């Protein structure tokens, strides 16, 4: 199968199909690593996870061991977690605080700038041995957008702000939910799991509403018993999809029948919470105006930053990262992020939504895992060659359609072939998009 044939994108006929070898082929998987994950900006961590000087967190980003550390100078740096001497991991805990990172293998020591500051028996090396050439290595590029740290393993390419483009609006909307200007904090604890499915299926599912009434019927039944009217979710049109460039897309949808801790009261929060939530709402309006307040308080935004970050601006805002492991296996991390002033009952309301929904034991996550693993098992029948992603292509697509997935796939298909970007991400290209962005490597 030629790479060019993996996606059929016929806008005139409203046909969009993805060849299932895209989800099963080791060759395609290797190309994804090289042409997507070795090139794109990839989310690595949030500033609140390394709040104090010396704080560090350990991650895997695109298969590489890395760690983030806030230096004594206050700056956050990212290093590849491998000793320049023989390779051992220098940082061996998921989180902590340290001024010096000592490799346990031969006891080479590095400061929070990655400099080699000590090694036993240095006289054993020739005169030309230069400590400054034996420091920790940083990824070629590290940048952050308002505290969200990204790395790129490509030494060149557009800067992070340009890469995120119009998607920064949705980071801003999330950050502006903090009343006090203190900003956001990642809540301690995470869901970390593996799923026997191709990573792209999880990306698609992250902003797929079409599956919600069937897969998540138990949640809707439960919410209905609590007095939520979820009927609007199954009505159409529901929600808006906006391609944001570079494969990013957002699905924005009104909170119907239910509540949002910031800031729409609902009986499920109890009468006692009413005045507090109305206070949050009033302060939002004072700071940001009625229109923005209504948007923040009255709707959720499911944002995909291509290729593998979900900013899930729901009642319990989530930072989700999706990593390919093998063609049929991926790893997922879900964290919840709140305003720093979300403590006590405010935080409890946020966490309660997580526990109900995308928690490992929630109403959503286990059944999503089941569905995606089921799809992957279905791909064992290669005679059924294609998956259909055409929903809503013939009309102005809404939230229960599949424009958001097509946006992702268009960028994926361009990049896996070696192009920098798709010529267009929309079903109906805007004039800007048609100015031939596609350039061969």
């Amino acid at each position, binding site marked *: 199968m030629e790479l060019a044939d993996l996606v059929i994108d016929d806008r005139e006929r409203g046909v969009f199909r993805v060849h299932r070898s895209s989800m099963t082929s080791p060759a395609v998987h290797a190309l994804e690593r090289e042409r997507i994950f070795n090139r794109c900006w990839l989310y690595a961590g949030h500033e609140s996870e390394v709040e104090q000087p010396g704080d560090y967190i350990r991650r895997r980003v695109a298969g590489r061991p890395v760690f983030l550390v806030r230096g004594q100078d206050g700056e956050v740096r990212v290093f590849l977690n491998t000793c320049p001497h023989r390779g051992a991991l220098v940082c061996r805990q998921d989180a902590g605080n340290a001024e010096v990172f000592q490799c346990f293998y031969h006891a080479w020591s590095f400061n929070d700038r990655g400099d080699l500051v000590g090694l036993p028996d240095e006289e054993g090396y020739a005169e030309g041995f230069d400590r400054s050439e034996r420091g920790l290595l940083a990824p070629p590029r590290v940048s952050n957008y308002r505290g969200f740290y990204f790395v790129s393993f490509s030494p060149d390419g557009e800067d992070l702000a340009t890469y995120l483009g119009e998607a920064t609006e949705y980071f801003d909307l999330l950050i502006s939910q903090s009343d006090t200007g203190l900003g956001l904090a990642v809540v*301690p604890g*995470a*869901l*970390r*799991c593996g799923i*026997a499915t191709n990573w792209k299926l999880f990306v698609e599912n992250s902003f797929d509403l079409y599956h919600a009434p069937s897969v998540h019927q138990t949640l809707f039944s439960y919410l209905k018993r609590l007095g939520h009217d979820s009927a609007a979710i199954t009505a159409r049109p529901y929600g808006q999809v906006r391609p944001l460039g570079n494969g990013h897309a957002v699905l924005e949808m009104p909170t119907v029948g239910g509540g949002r801790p910031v800031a729409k009261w609902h009986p499920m929060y109890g009468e006692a919470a009413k005045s507090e939530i109305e206070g949050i709402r009033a302060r939002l309006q004072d700071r940001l105006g009625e229109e923005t307040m209504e948007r923040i308080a009255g709707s959720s935004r499911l944002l995909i930053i291509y290729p593998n970050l979900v900013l899930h601006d729901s009642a319990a805002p989530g930072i989700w990262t999706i990593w390919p492991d093998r063609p049929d296996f991926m790893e997922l991390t879900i964290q919840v992020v709140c305003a720093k002033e979300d403590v006590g009952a405010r935080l409890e309301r946020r966490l309660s939504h997580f526990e109900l929904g995308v928690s490992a034991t*929630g109403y959503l996550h*286990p059944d999503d895992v089941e569905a995606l693993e089921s799809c992957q098992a279905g791909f064992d029948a290669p005679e059924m060659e294609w998956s259909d992603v055409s929903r809503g292509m013939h009309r102005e697509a809404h939230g229960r359609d599949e424009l958001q997935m097509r946006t992702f796939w268009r960028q994926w298909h361009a990049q896996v072939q070696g192009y920098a970007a798709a010529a267009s991400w929309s079903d109906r290209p805007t004039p800007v998009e048609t100015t031939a962005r596609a350039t061969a490597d």
Partner: protein
Amino acid sequence: MTFTPVNGKESLVSHDLLHEVEQFLFFEAELLDDWRLDDWVALFTEDARYVIPTTDLPNGVPGQDLVFANDDIGRLRARVERLKSRHAHREYPWSRTRRFINNIRIADASGDEVTVNASYLVYRFRDATGRGAHVDTYVGKYTYNLVRSEGQFRIRHKKAVLDNETLYTHGAVSIIL
């Protein structure tokens, strides 16, 4: 009568009490393995809590930290309803489970209340995709707060801490631990 250390001190815990607690925990495990979920949820008090911390934060505090489960009795009953429906897809049909409860120790006993620590090993088998046998193994520590009411134990608090460091091979926790 037998001596069992409580809170690091030697104090008196009757063999009868230990036996009674053990039989209660074994009974609870049997109800779950047999998917007798209505009988299981009836073991809980009206002010009960059921908590599962995340794998990376075993000491996580509900309401302050991310935890997987933090059910009051309403949510616990709803969890049972969900698992009994045909629409909890990861558990329809139900998986086969076998729970092993050991190292049962009474940490505290006063009046009608008993605090119990125990180790658990829960196997879950389900070949949902027909791709071959799949085994999930959940290992960890239970902490119970039991209260005696009308001659029977009820569960006021159950916490299941997982020793598994991630859910890499599990994907989710679709059963009750």
